[in-house]
């Protein structure tokens, strides 16, 4: 049967993935899948992309040995993959470069994107500016207010920012609005999804674009130590930086893969975003995966101190990695993440994104339990300048820029 055959190539990860989107978008998504399948093996495209990653985004990012933290924690050797040193300050740019370059090849002249905290929106607006593409960003009204600086940043980069008032006015509503906008106008427009989510080919494509992270880690760690890591730790919102960090280690059975979800005020409260730990299987935003939802399938309002992890779903490949236990997923609370934010600043002089600090927090627990000849690589997905004001407020100081 045609449908069965098609669904086999629709990027399934176990039962997860698929293309659950309105027919208004299907033919565009199919076109995208085809284009992507062509260009992923096209050496000119790959070369052009590598050139941008290298000469614009500042890759490769450093693999940094955190000697002070290693000594202080007294266990495994800790390395940080410094995605915070990329242009625009996070891993998001890896994906955006790939997608906008692809969009350009497809003849698009306009890109749209959702954004929560603004990181993905800023990255998209940045590459759109560089490539001379029109750019519109969709952002929940609540987020436009609490991230006003990022809104202005996107405008500076020439993007139009739409404030979304529907639903909870946060990230998932921004995704809804961006999908709706795309379903209105696909002929000249590509929707740059910001994580390993959405319908096929997005989870596969974004994961491919982010896989450069683990490719570099593997090579760099080999050069420095001649070894594979014993554990790779990354935070998980939609899951793109984690997929990027895991990718080339999935087939290495000795490497533990650990994703750190936002446990907010605790997974036993109503205020968290711990999808793997507390979610259930569902179908939303174009994919079958795990979601935080009620028994009727209504999507939950979620919470995390970290705007980048504040999403009720997770990429389908993570759901599959969790099911097969190839990767472990742990919840990190706001308190733990903030403590890690402060710890890494003081120990290593690195102000890391609060998202990334969810991973750092787990490293603080894990390292002392491991042996001194073992190696943890922790992905620092972004820099934390954007978070300093919020952390100050968390600590009771009133600070405005």
């Amino acid at each position, binding site marked *: *049967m*045609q*449908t*069965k055959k*098609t*669904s086999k190539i*629709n990027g399934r990860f176990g039962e997860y993935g*698929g*293309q*659950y*989107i*309105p*027919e*208004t978008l*299907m*033919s*565009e998504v*199919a076109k995208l899948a085809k284009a992507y399948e062509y260009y992923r093996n096209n050496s000119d495209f790959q070369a052009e992309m590598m050139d941008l990653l290298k000469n614009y985004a500042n890759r490769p990012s450093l693999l940094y040995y955190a000697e002070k933290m290693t000594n202080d924690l007294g266990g495994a050797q800790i390395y940080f993959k410094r995605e915070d040193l990329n242009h625009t300050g996070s891993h998001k740019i890896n994906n955006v470069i790939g997608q906008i370059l692809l969009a350009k090849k497809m003849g698009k002249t306009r890109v749209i994107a959702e954004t929560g905290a603004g990181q993905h929106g800023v990255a998209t607006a940045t590459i759109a500016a560089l490539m001379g593409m029109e750019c519109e960003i969709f952002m929940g009204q609540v987020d436009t207010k609490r991230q006003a600086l990022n809104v202005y940043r996107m405008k500076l980069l020439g993007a139009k920012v739409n404030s979304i008032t*529907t*639903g909870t006015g946060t990230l*998932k*509503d921004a995704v*809804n609005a961006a*999908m*709706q906008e795309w*379903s*209105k*106008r*696909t002929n000249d427009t590509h929707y740059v999804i910001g994580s390993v989510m959405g319908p096929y080919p997005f989870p596969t494509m974004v994961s491919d674009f982010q896989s450069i992270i683990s490719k570099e880690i593997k090579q760099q760690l080999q050069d420095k130590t001649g070894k594979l890591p014993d554990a790779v730790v990354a935070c998980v919102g939609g899951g793109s930086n984690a997929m990027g960090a895991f990718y080339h280690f999935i087939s290495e059975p000795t490497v533990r893969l650990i994703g750190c979800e936002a446990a907010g005020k605790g997974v036993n409260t109503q205020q968290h975003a711990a999808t793997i730990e507390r979610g*259930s*299987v*569902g*179908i*939303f*935003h*174009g994919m079958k995966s795990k*979601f935080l*939802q009620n*028994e*009727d*399938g*209504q*999507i939950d309002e979620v919470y995390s101190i970290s705007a980048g992890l504040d999403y009720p779903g997770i990429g389908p490949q993570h759901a599959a990695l969790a099911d097969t236990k190839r990767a472990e997923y742990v919840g990190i609370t706001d308190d733990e993440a903030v403590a890690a934010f402060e710890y890494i600043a003081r120990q290593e002089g690195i102000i890391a994104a609060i998202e990334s600090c969810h991973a750092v927090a787990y490293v603080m627990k894990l390292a002392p339990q491991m042996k001194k000849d073992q190696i943890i690589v922790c992905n620092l997905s972004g820099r934390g300048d954007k978070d300093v004001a919020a952390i100050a407020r968390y600590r009771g100081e009133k600070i405005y820029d």
Partner: protein
Amino acid sequence: MSRQLRDIEERKFMTEKRLRAAFTNQHKAFIGFVTAGDPTFEKSVAAILALAAGGADVIEVGVPFSDPVADGPVIQDADLRAFATGITTTKVFELVGEVRKKSDVSLVLLVYLNNIFKYGYDRFFSKCKQVGIDGVIIPDLPMEERSEVLPFTLKYQCALIPLVAPTSGDRIPQIVQETTGFVYVVSSMGVTGVRSQLDSNLEDMITAIRKSTDAPIAVGFGIHTPEQAAKIAAIADGVIVGSAIVKIIAENTAVTIEKITGYTRQMGAAIHKGDREKNL
């Protein structure tokens, strides 16, 4: 016996007799939409009955979803109103049961896949059969993923109404192949909501669909005036009106029910003009 009716008879299963029948009484079908539980359980039952009283041939009952990606602001707001009074999937079925006590009108559900998935595919469609639902429209289920629910719609003889969009193009033959119920043609890109102008390639789309199926074709998305409806009726088998009705419901006044019946009559008149002319 019309050709359409004959076709139905020949099919392997007879799930959607009532639904197909809506298209066969010598006139074009008028299909109206109501969000279940908007603004209250009782009032939406009344709205459905008012549509039926006004002559609607099929009534599309929307199952509220937290994130209705295919819907515009009008229906999104209706969902929020319904949630505010505590609507659940279970209650939607109860609501259909209430309607069935008083009307035999053909009912279909507009429901996002996750609501069905979480309820359980088997349980959901079994329930549909039990309460008298003739078909489902699942906006986020393209043909690529249809095999996910098809076994259950077949088992419980519930029509799985396929959607065709202006961009469907080459996909049409596959989409409409083995259509049960009717084909839902999305008249314009984007989401639900009233529009002053409809897309221009509607005729081409309908021609393309007719090449691949005998199933009736209803057109929706953006239709609200009798003039628009009449034009659509001239080329399609049915006209679907959603947001325009939901907007009347949103007014929520003493005369809302009358207004719905009146609007339905007015739209019906515009749609059936052609029928009457044919019947002369």
